[in-house]
Protein backbone atom coordinates (compact mmCIF):
# COMPACT_ATOMS: atom_id res chain seq x y z
CA UNK A 1 0.00 0.00 0.00
CA UNK A 2 1.35 3.41 -0.88
CA UNK A 3 1.09 6.34 1.36
CA UNK A 4 -0.81 9.10 -0.39
CA UNK A 5 -1.22 11.36 2.62
CA UNK A 6 1.70 11.99 4.94
CA UNK A 7 -0.21 11.11 8.05
CA UNK A 8 0.43 8.54 10.66
CA UNK A 9 -1.01 5.24 9.52
CA UNK A 10 -0.27 2.66 12.16
CA UNK A 11 0.79 -0.69 10.81
CA UNK A 12 1.33 0.46 7.24
CA UNK A 13 4.99 -0.05 6.39
CA UNK A 14 6.73 2.80 4.66
CA UNK A 15 4.34 5.46 5.86
CA UNK A 16 5.97 8.39 7.57
CA UNK A 17 4.94 8.87 11.14
CA UNK A 18 4.07 12.44 11.88
CA UNK A 19 3.16 13.34 15.38
CA UNK A 20 1.82 16.73 16.24
CA UNK A 21 3.70 17.59 19.40
CA UNK A 22 1.66 19.85 21.66
CA UNK A 23 3.63 21.63 24.37
CA UNK A 24 2.89 19.83 27.59
CA UNK A 25 5.17 21.00 30.34
CA UNK A 26 5.36 24.44 31.82
CA UNK A 27 8.80 25.11 30.39
CA UNK A 28 7.75 23.88 26.94
CA UNK A 29 4.79 26.26 27.00
CA UNK A 30 7.04 29.10 28.16
CA UNK A 31 9.65 28.46 25.47
CA UNK A 32 6.98 28.05 22.80
CA UNK A 33 5.15 31.18 23.91
CA UNK A 34 8.32 33.26 23.82
CA UNK A 35 9.08 31.88 20.37
CA UNK A 36 5.56 32.62 19.11
CA UNK A 37 4.57 28.98 18.73
CA UNK A 38 0.84 28.68 17.97
CA UNK A 39 0.13 25.73 20.28
CA UNK A 40 1.86 27.34 23.23
CA UNK A 41 0.13 30.63 22.52
CA UNK A 42 -3.27 28.91 22.57
CA UNK A 43 -2.40 27.35 25.91
CA UNK A 44 -1.53 30.70 27.44
CA UNK A 45 -4.50 32.38 25.79
CA UNK A 46 -6.73 29.76 27.44
CA UNK A 47 -5.30 30.61 30.84
CA UNK A 48 -5.77 34.33 30.26
CA UNK A 49 -9.31 33.93 28.97
CA UNK A 50 -10.08 31.90 32.07
CA UNK A 51 -9.46 35.05 34.09
CA UNK A 52 -10.72 37.72 31.71
CA UNK A 53 -13.89 36.06 30.47
CA UNK A 54 -14.86 34.07 33.56
CA UNK A 55 -14.75 36.93 36.08
CA UNK A 56 -17.59 39.44 36.53
CA UNK A 57 -15.46 42.23 35.12
CA UNK A 58 -18.01 43.34 32.51
CA UNK A 59 -15.23 44.48 30.22
CA UNK A 60 -16.38 46.55 27.27
CA UNK A 61 -13.83 44.80 25.09
CA UNK A 62 -12.80 41.46 26.65
CA UNK A 63 -10.88 40.47 23.54
CA UNK A 64 -8.82 43.62 23.85
CA UNK A 65 -8.11 42.81 27.49
CA UNK A 66 -6.95 39.31 26.56
CA UNK A 67 -4.69 40.84 23.93
CA UNK A 68 -3.30 43.34 26.41
CA UNK A 69 -2.47 40.60 28.91
CA UNK A 70 -0.88 38.41 26.24
CA UNK A 71 1.24 41.28 24.98
CA UNK A 72 2.29 42.18 28.50
CA UNK A 73 3.27 38.56 29.14
CA UNK A 74 5.19 38.43 25.91
CA UNK A 75 7.03 41.65 26.75
CA UNK A 76 7.96 40.34 30.20
CA UNK A 77 9.06 36.95 28.91
CA UNK A 78 11.07 38.30 26.00
CA UNK A 79 12.77 40.93 28.13
CA UNK A 80 13.94 38.17 30.48
CA UNK A 81 12.06 39.59 33.44
CA UNK A 82 10.29 36.30 34.14
CA UNK A 83 12.88 34.30 36.01
CA UNK A 84 10.88 31.28 37.08
CA UNK A 85 10.17 32.14 40.71
CA UNK A 86 6.79 30.47 40.23
CA UNK A 87 5.51 28.22 37.44
CA UNK A 88 4.81 30.06 34.21
CA UNK A 89 1.16 29.15 34.52
CA UNK A 90 0.93 30.69 37.99
CA UNK A 91 2.78 33.71 36.72
CA UNK A 92 0.50 34.09 33.69
CA UNK A 93 -2.56 33.85 35.94
CA UNK A 94 -1.15 36.47 38.23
CA UNK A 95 -0.41 38.88 35.37
CA UNK A 96 -3.86 38.24 33.90
CA UNK A 97 -5.53 38.98 37.21
CA UNK A 98 -3.70 42.17 38.06
CA UNK A 99 -3.95 43.47 34.51
CA UNK A 100 -7.68 42.77 34.68
CA UNK A 101 -7.84 44.73 37.94
CA UNK A 102 -6.04 47.68 36.32
CA UNK A 103 -8.32 47.71 33.31
CA UNK A 104 -11.41 47.21 35.45
CA UNK A 105 -10.48 50.24 37.55
CA UNK A 106 -9.70 52.34 34.47
CA UNK A 107 -13.04 51.35 32.99
CA UNK A 108 -14.93 52.12 36.20
CA UNK A 109 -13.23 55.50 36.48
CA UNK A 110 -13.95 56.28 32.84
CA UNK A 111 -17.60 55.36 33.28
CA UNK A 112 -17.84 57.42 36.44
CA UNK A 113 -16.48 60.70 35.14
CA UNK A 114 -17.50 60.24 31.48
CA UNK A 115 -14.09 61.43 30.42
CA UNK A 116 -14.06 62.52 26.77
CA UNK A 117 -11.76 60.69 24.41
CA UNK A 118 -8.38 62.35 24.29
CA UNK A 119 -7.46 63.46 20.77
CA UNK A 120 -4.38 61.91 19.25
CA UNK A 121 -1.41 63.98 20.30
CA UNK A 122 0.94 65.23 17.62
CA UNK A 123 4.49 64.06 17.07
CA UNK A 124 6.47 64.81 20.28
CA UNK A 125 4.28 62.36 22.26
CA UNK A 126 5.91 58.99 22.98
CA UNK A 127 4.88 56.14 20.76
CA UNK A 128 2.67 53.29 21.95
CA UNK A 129 5.60 51.15 23.07
CA UNK A 130 7.10 53.95 25.13
CA UNK A 131 3.74 54.76 26.70
CA UNK A 132 3.34 51.14 27.76
CA UNK A 133 6.82 51.16 29.20
CA UNK A 134 6.16 54.39 31.10
CA UNK A 135 2.95 52.99 32.49
CA UNK A 136 4.67 49.81 33.62
CA UNK A 137 7.44 51.81 35.29
CA UNK A 138 4.82 53.80 37.14
CA UNK A 139 3.10 50.58 38.18
CA UNK A 140 6.39 49.20 39.40
CA UNK A 141 7.14 52.34 41.41
CA UNK A 142 3.64 52.25 42.90
CA UNK A 143 4.12 48.63 43.82
CA UNK A 144 7.43 49.35 45.55
CA UNK A 145 6.26 52.50 47.28
CA UNK A 146 3.07 50.92 48.57
CA UNK A 147 4.93 47.88 49.92
CA UNK A 148 7.47 49.88 51.85
CA UNK A 149 7.11 50.38 55.60
CA UNK A 150 6.06 53.79 56.83
CA UNK A 151 9.52 54.99 57.88
CA UNK A 152 10.94 54.26 54.41
CA UNK A 153 8.03 56.03 52.74
CA UNK A 154 8.64 59.06 54.89
CA UNK A 155 12.31 59.05 53.89
CA UNK A 156 11.30 58.55 50.22
CA UNK A 157 9.11 61.62 50.43
CA UNK A 158 11.86 63.71 51.96
CA UNK A 159 14.75 62.49 49.79
CA UNK A 160 13.12 61.75 46.42
CA UNK A 161 9.95 63.78 46.71
CA UNK A 162 11.20 67.03 48.26
CA UNK A 163 14.87 66.55 47.33
CA UNK A 164 16.15 67.34 50.84
CA UNK A 165 19.76 66.86 51.93
CA UNK A 166 20.69 64.34 54.62
CA UNK A 167 21.29 67.22 57.04
CA UNK A 168 17.83 68.68 56.42
CA UNK A 169 16.12 65.29 56.74
CA UNK A 170 18.07 64.68 59.96
CA UNK A 171 16.95 68.03 61.33
CA UNK A 172 13.31 67.20 60.61
CA UNK A 173 13.51 63.71 62.08
CA UNK A 174 15.81 64.61 64.98
CA UNK A 175 18.60 62.25 63.95
CA UNK A 176 22.14 62.72 62.63
CA UNK A 177 22.84 63.08 58.87
CA UNK A 178 24.91 59.90 59.02
CA UNK A 179 21.95 58.03 60.45
CA UNK A 180 19.71 59.44 57.72
CA UNK A 181 22.10 58.19 55.04
CA UNK A 182 22.29 54.68 56.50
CA UNK A 183 18.50 54.47 56.88
CA UNK A 184 17.91 55.78 53.38
CA UNK A 185 20.39 53.30 51.97
CA UNK A 186 18.65 50.42 53.77
CA UNK A 187 15.31 51.56 52.43
CA UNK A 188 16.76 51.78 48.93
CA UNK A 189 18.00 48.21 49.20
CA UNK A 190 14.63 47.11 50.53
CA UNK A 191 12.99 48.83 47.58
CA UNK A 192 15.32 47.02 45.18
CA UNK A 193 14.38 43.70 46.76
CA UNK A 194 10.70 44.53 46.42
CA UNK A 195 11.25 45.51 42.79
CA UNK A 196 12.53 42.03 41.95
CA UNK A 197 9.09 40.65 42.83
CA UNK A 198 7.29 42.94 40.43
CA UNK A 199 5.94 41.00 37.43
CA UNK A 200 8.58 38.37 38.05
CA UNK A 201 11.58 40.66 37.85
CA UNK A 202 12.96 44.20 38.11
CA UNK A 203 11.56 46.67 35.65
CA UNK A 204 13.63 49.71 36.56
CA UNK A 205 16.43 50.04 34.09
CA UNK A 206 19.86 50.07 35.70
CA UNK A 207 22.80 51.85 34.18
CA UNK A 208 21.44 55.36 33.83
CA UNK A 209 23.46 58.20 35.34
CA UNK A 210 22.48 61.67 36.56
Amino acid sequence: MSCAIPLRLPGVPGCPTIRVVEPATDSEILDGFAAGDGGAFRHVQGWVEGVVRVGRWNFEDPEGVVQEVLLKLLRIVRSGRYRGQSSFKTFAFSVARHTSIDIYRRQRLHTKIHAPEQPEAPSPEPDAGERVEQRERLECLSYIFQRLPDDCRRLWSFVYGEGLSAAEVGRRLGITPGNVRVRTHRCLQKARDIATGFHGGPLLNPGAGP
Partner: protein
Amino acid sequence: MSGRDAIAPLIPFYANGTLDETERSRVEAHLAGCESCRALLAHALAFGETAPDALEEHVQSQLLLEYLEARETLEPDAVRRIEGHLGSCEVCRDALAIVKELPGERAEAPGRSPGVLAGLWELLAGSVLRPAPALAYLLLLLLAYPAYRFLAPGGPEAPASVLGVTATLRGETVFRADPGEPAPPAASLTRPPDGAPLLLELATDIDAGDLRDTDATFLVELTHGERTLIEQPRRGADFDDGATLRVVIYPDRLEPDTDYTLSIRFHKPGDPLDGRVLFRHAFRLVDQAATRSPAAARP
Protein backbone atom coordinates in the same frame (compact mmCIF):
# COMPACT_ATOMS: atom_id res chain seq x y z
CA MET B 1 34.62 50.23 55.86
CA SER B 2 35.19 49.27 52.24
CA GLY B 3 34.72 51.72 49.40
CA ARG B 4 31.34 50.38 48.45
CA ASP B 5 30.02 50.40 52.01
CA ALA B 6 31.11 53.99 52.42
CA ILE B 7 29.75 55.21 49.07
CA ALA B 8 26.41 53.36 48.85
CA PRO B 9 24.70 55.47 51.60
CA LEU B 10 25.62 58.60 49.65
CA ILE B 11 23.96 57.44 46.44
CA PRO B 12 20.37 58.55 47.22
CA PHE B 13 21.70 62.02 47.98
CA TYR B 14 23.89 61.97 44.89
CA ALA B 15 20.72 61.18 42.95
CA ASN B 16 18.82 64.12 44.47
CA GLY B 17 21.79 66.46 43.94
CA THR B 18 22.34 67.48 47.59
CA LEU B 19 25.91 66.23 48.12
CA ASP B 20 28.71 68.75 48.46
CA GLU B 21 31.41 68.91 45.83
CA THR B 22 33.89 66.63 47.65
CA GLU B 23 31.35 63.88 48.28
CA ARG B 24 30.05 64.17 44.76
CA SER B 25 33.52 63.61 43.33
CA ARG B 26 34.07 60.58 45.57
CA VAL B 27 30.81 59.02 44.44
CA GLU B 28 31.55 59.64 40.76
CA ALA B 29 35.01 58.14 41.07
CA HIS B 30 33.53 55.06 42.72
CA LEU B 31 30.65 54.67 40.27
CA ALA B 32 33.07 54.43 37.36
CA GLY B 33 34.28 51.06 38.64
CA CYS B 34 31.27 49.66 40.55
CA GLU B 35 28.44 48.12 38.57
CA SER B 36 26.44 47.29 41.68
CA CYS B 37 26.45 50.95 42.77
CA ARG B 38 25.45 52.07 39.27
CA ALA B 39 22.43 49.77 39.51
CA LEU B 40 21.61 51.24 42.90
CA LEU B 41 21.85 54.72 41.45
CA ALA B 42 19.49 53.77 38.62
CA HIS B 43 16.90 52.79 41.18
CA ALA B 44 17.45 55.93 43.21
CA LEU B 45 16.97 58.03 40.09
CA ALA B 46 13.85 56.13 39.14
CA PHE B 47 12.37 56.76 42.58
CA GLY B 48 13.06 60.44 42.18
CA GLU B 49 11.18 60.58 38.87
CA THR B 50 7.70 60.43 40.33
CA ALA B 51 6.16 62.21 43.25
CA PRO B 52 4.85 59.82 45.91
CA ASP B 53 1.37 61.33 45.58
CA ALA B 54 1.17 59.99 42.04
CA LEU B 55 1.86 56.47 43.27
CA GLU B 56 -1.10 56.17 45.57
CA GLU B 57 -4.26 56.62 43.56
CA HIS B 58 -5.24 52.98 44.19
CA VAL B 59 -3.60 49.97 45.75
CA GLN B 60 -1.31 48.70 42.99
CA SER B 61 -2.99 45.67 41.43
CA GLN B 62 -0.20 43.16 42.02
CA LEU B 63 -0.04 44.30 45.63
CA LEU B 64 -3.81 43.86 45.91
CA LEU B 65 -3.41 40.22 44.81
CA GLU B 66 -0.60 39.69 47.28
CA TYR B 67 -2.80 41.13 50.00
CA LEU B 68 -5.44 38.58 49.01
CA GLU B 69 -3.17 35.56 48.74
CA ALA B 70 -0.04 36.17 50.79
CA ARG B 71 -0.86 38.82 53.34
CA GLU B 72 1.75 37.47 55.74
CA THR B 73 4.55 38.44 53.34
CA LEU B 74 3.61 42.12 53.47
CA GLU B 75 4.86 44.74 55.89
CA PRO B 76 2.27 45.41 58.62
CA ASP B 77 2.31 49.07 57.57
CA ALA B 78 1.44 48.07 54.01
CA VAL B 79 -1.42 45.83 55.18
CA ARG B 80 -2.83 48.63 57.32
CA ARG B 81 -2.68 51.09 54.42
CA ILE B 82 -4.28 48.64 52.00
CA GLU B 83 -7.11 47.96 54.41
CA GLY B 84 -7.54 51.67 54.94
CA HIS B 85 -7.78 52.19 51.20
CA LEU B 86 -10.20 49.29 50.74
CA GLY B 87 -12.40 50.81 53.39
CA SER B 88 -12.89 53.91 51.31
CA CYS B 89 -12.51 52.67 47.72
CA GLU B 90 -15.51 50.85 46.32
CA VAL B 91 -13.77 50.16 42.99
CA CYS B 92 -10.89 48.32 44.65
CA ARG B 93 -13.29 46.38 46.87
CA ASP B 94 -15.28 45.31 43.82
CA ALA B 95 -12.12 44.30 41.95
CA LEU B 96 -11.00 42.22 44.90
CA ALA B 97 -14.41 40.56 45.11
CA ILE B 98 -14.25 39.59 41.43
CA VAL B 99 -10.78 38.11 41.84
CA LYS B 100 -11.95 36.13 44.88
CA GLU B 101 -14.70 34.55 42.81
CA LEU B 102 -12.38 33.41 40.03
CA PRO B 103 -11.89 29.66 39.90
CA GLY B 104 -8.42 28.35 40.70
CA GLU B 105 -5.84 28.07 37.97
CA ARG B 106 -6.19 24.28 37.74
CA ALA B 107 -9.78 24.79 36.58
CA GLU B 108 -8.85 27.16 33.76
CA ALA B 109 -6.20 25.33 31.86
CA PRO B 110 -7.35 23.95 28.55
CA GLY B 111 -5.61 20.93 27.16
CA ARG B 112 -3.19 18.98 29.23
CA SER B 113 -2.10 19.86 32.69
CA PRO B 114 1.56 19.59 33.66
CA GLY B 115 0.85 16.16 35.10
CA VAL B 116 -1.39 14.38 37.53
CA LEU B 117 1.41 13.70 39.99
CA ALA B 118 2.62 17.28 39.88
CA GLY B 119 -0.92 18.50 40.42
CA LEU B 120 -1.44 16.08 43.28
CA TRP B 121 1.81 17.16 44.85
CA GLU B 122 0.80 20.83 44.57
CA LEU B 123 -2.52 19.99 46.18
CA LEU B 124 -0.91 18.06 49.03
CA ALA B 125 1.78 20.66 49.55
CA GLY B 126 -0.89 23.30 49.88
CA SER B 127 -3.01 21.33 52.33
CA VAL B 128 -2.23 18.09 54.14
CA LEU B 129 1.53 18.50 54.13
CA ARG B 130 1.31 21.62 56.23
CA PRO B 131 1.57 20.72 59.92
CA ALA B 132 -1.71 22.11 61.23
CA PRO B 133 -3.96 20.80 58.44
CA ALA B 134 -2.08 17.49 58.54
CA LEU B 135 -3.01 16.98 62.19
CA ALA B 136 -6.59 17.91 61.45
CA TYR B 137 -6.74 15.43 58.55
CA LEU B 138 -5.22 12.72 60.71
CA LEU B 139 -7.74 13.31 63.46
CA LEU B 140 -10.54 13.28 60.92
CA LEU B 141 -9.32 9.99 59.49
CA LEU B 142 -9.08 8.41 62.95
CA LEU B 143 -12.65 9.44 63.68
CA ALA B 144 -14.02 8.66 60.27
CA TYR B 145 -12.58 5.19 59.80
CA PRO B 146 -14.61 3.39 62.50
CA ALA B 147 -17.72 5.22 61.37
CA TYR B 148 -16.98 4.21 57.79
CA ARG B 149 -16.57 0.57 58.74
CA PHE B 150 -19.93 0.41 60.44
CA LEU B 151 -22.02 2.88 58.54
CA ALA B 152 -20.69 3.15 55.01
CA PRO B 153 -23.29 1.88 52.57
CA GLY B 154 -21.82 -0.86 50.50
CA GLY B 155 -18.32 -0.20 51.77
CA PRO B 156 -15.56 -2.62 50.85
CA GLU B 157 -15.83 -4.42 54.17
CA ALA B 158 -19.61 -4.56 54.21
CA PRO B 159 -21.09 -7.97 53.51
CA ALA B 160 -21.99 -8.54 49.91
CA SER B 161 -25.63 -8.89 50.82
CA VAL B 162 -27.73 -8.21 53.84
CA LEU B 163 -30.58 -10.07 52.20
CA GLY B 164 -30.82 -13.64 51.10
CA VAL B 165 -31.82 -13.54 47.45
CA THR B 166 -32.41 -16.25 44.92
CA ALA B 167 -32.53 -15.14 41.31
CA THR B 168 -34.39 -17.22 38.79
CA LEU B 169 -34.72 -16.93 35.08
CA ARG B 170 -37.56 -18.82 33.42
CA GLY B 171 -37.93 -20.85 36.57
CA GLU B 172 -34.25 -21.87 36.77
CA THR B 173 -32.02 -20.58 39.54
CA VAL B 174 -29.22 -18.53 38.03
CA PHE B 175 -27.58 -17.26 41.17
CA ARG B 176 -28.03 -17.07 44.88
CA ALA B 177 -26.79 -14.65 47.52
CA ASP B 178 -26.68 -15.56 51.16
CA PRO B 179 -26.72 -12.87 53.83
CA GLY B 180 -23.34 -12.11 55.28
CA GLU B 181 -21.45 -14.20 52.76
CA PRO B 182 -18.68 -12.68 50.67
CA ALA B 183 -19.62 -11.71 47.13
CA PRO B 184 -19.68 -14.83 44.93
CA PRO B 185 -18.11 -14.81 41.46
CA ALA B 186 -20.13 -13.42 38.60
CA ALA B 187 -22.97 -15.66 37.48
CA SER B 188 -23.41 -16.45 33.81
CA LEU B 189 -26.77 -15.63 32.27
CA THR B 190 -27.55 -16.90 28.82
CA ARG B 191 -28.39 -14.22 26.33
CA PRO B 192 -31.66 -15.08 24.60
CA PRO B 193 -31.00 -15.70 20.89
CA ASP B 194 -33.88 -13.48 19.77
CA GLY B 195 -32.81 -10.51 21.86
CA ALA B 196 -35.82 -10.89 24.11
CA PRO B 197 -35.67 -9.21 27.52
CA LEU B 198 -34.61 -11.21 30.52
CA LEU B 199 -37.14 -11.33 33.30
CA LEU B 200 -35.15 -11.92 36.42
CA GLU B 201 -37.09 -12.83 39.51
CA LEU B 202 -35.41 -12.01 42.80
CA ALA B 203 -36.91 -13.97 45.64
CA THR B 204 -35.84 -12.15 48.79
CA ASP B 205 -36.16 -12.83 52.47
CA ILE B 206 -37.45 -9.35 53.27
CA ASP B 207 -39.93 -9.50 56.06
CA ALA B 208 -43.51 -8.87 54.96
CA GLY B 209 -43.83 -6.22 57.65
CA ASP B 210 -40.93 -4.28 56.15
CA LEU B 211 -42.53 -4.44 52.75
CA ARG B 212 -45.64 -2.82 54.16
CA ASP B 213 -43.57 0.18 55.30
CA THR B 214 -44.70 2.90 52.94
CA ASP B 215 -41.69 5.13 53.75
CA ALA B 216 -39.19 2.57 52.53
CA THR B 217 -37.77 2.60 49.01
CA PHE B 218 -35.78 -0.18 47.40
CA LEU B 219 -33.56 1.19 44.66
CA VAL B 220 -32.72 -1.41 42.03
CA GLU B 221 -29.44 -0.60 40.28
CA LEU B 222 -27.65 -2.27 37.42
CA THR B 223 -24.13 -0.95 37.09
CA HIS B 224 -20.96 -1.52 35.15
CA GLY B 225 -18.01 0.16 36.82
CA GLU B 226 -19.03 3.79 37.27
CA ARG B 227 -21.78 3.53 34.67
CA THR B 228 -25.36 3.03 35.82
CA LEU B 229 -27.64 1.30 33.33
CA ILE B 230 -30.74 0.86 35.44
CA GLU B 231 -31.85 2.86 38.42
CA GLN B 232 -35.39 1.98 39.46
CA PRO B 233 -36.92 2.96 42.79
CA ARG B 234 -39.34 0.33 44.03
CA ARG B 235 -41.77 0.26 46.91
CA GLY B 236 -42.73 -2.65 49.09
CA ALA B 237 -45.96 -2.90 47.15
CA ASP B 238 -43.92 -3.77 44.03
CA PHE B 239 -42.87 -7.06 45.64
CA ASP B 240 -45.33 -9.91 45.41
CA ASP B 241 -46.57 -11.87 48.40
CA GLY B 242 -43.47 -14.04 48.45
CA ALA B 243 -41.25 -10.92 48.69
CA THR B 244 -40.19 -11.44 45.13
CA LEU B 245 -39.14 -8.56 42.94
CA ARG B 246 -39.09 -8.76 39.18
CA VAL B 247 -36.41 -6.96 37.19
CA VAL B 248 -36.40 -6.70 33.42
CA ILE B 249 -33.03 -6.55 31.73
CA TYR B 250 -32.73 -5.76 28.03
CA PRO B 251 -29.76 -7.75 26.79
CA ASP B 252 -29.15 -5.49 23.80
CA ARG B 253 -27.95 -2.82 26.24
CA LEU B 254 -25.34 -5.16 27.69
CA GLU B 255 -21.99 -6.18 26.28
CA PRO B 256 -21.08 -9.86 26.22
CA ASP B 257 -18.44 -11.16 28.58
CA THR B 258 -18.66 -8.08 30.75
CA ASP B 259 -19.40 -8.09 34.43
CA TYR B 260 -22.48 -6.17 35.57
CA THR B 261 -23.64 -5.75 39.12
CA LEU B 262 -27.23 -5.93 40.18
CA SER B 263 -28.00 -4.43 43.56
CA ILE B 264 -30.83 -3.31 45.78
CA ARG B 265 -30.22 -0.29 47.96
CA PHE B 266 -32.48 0.55 50.86
CA HIS B 267 -33.69 4.10 51.49
CA LYS B 268 -35.65 5.26 54.45
CA PRO B 269 -34.85 8.57 56.15
CA GLY B 270 -33.88 8.08 59.77
CA ASP B 271 -33.51 4.32 59.49
CA PRO B 272 -30.12 2.84 60.51
CA LEU B 273 -30.06 0.95 57.22
CA ASP B 274 -30.76 4.05 55.13
CA GLY B 275 -28.51 4.02 52.07
CA ARG B 276 -27.24 0.51 52.73
CA VAL B 277 -26.85 -2.01 49.91
CA LEU B 278 -29.11 -4.93 50.86
CA PHE B 279 -28.17 -7.18 48.03
CA ARG B 280 -25.47 -7.24 45.41
CA HIS B 281 -24.51 -9.84 42.84
CA ALA B 282 -22.44 -9.74 39.68
CA PHE B 283 -23.38 -11.47 36.45
CA ARG B 284 -22.37 -11.55 32.85
CA LEU B 285 -24.23 -12.36 29.68
CA VAL B 286 -22.90 -15.18 27.56
CA ASP B 287 -24.07 -16.37 24.20
CA GLN B 288 -26.07 -19.56 24.11
CA ALA B 289 -23.42 -21.72 22.43
CA ALA B 290 -20.86 -20.87 25.07
CA THR B 291 -23.10 -22.04 27.93
CA ARG B 292 -24.58 -25.13 26.38
CA SER B 293 -24.36 -27.82 28.99
CA PRO B 294 -22.63 -31.10 28.15
CA ALA B 295 -26.02 -32.80 28.42
CA ALA B 296 -27.60 -30.43 25.95
CA ALA B 297 -24.69 -30.87 23.54
CA ARG B 298 -25.16 -34.60 23.39
CA PRO B 299 -27.03 -35.93 20.38
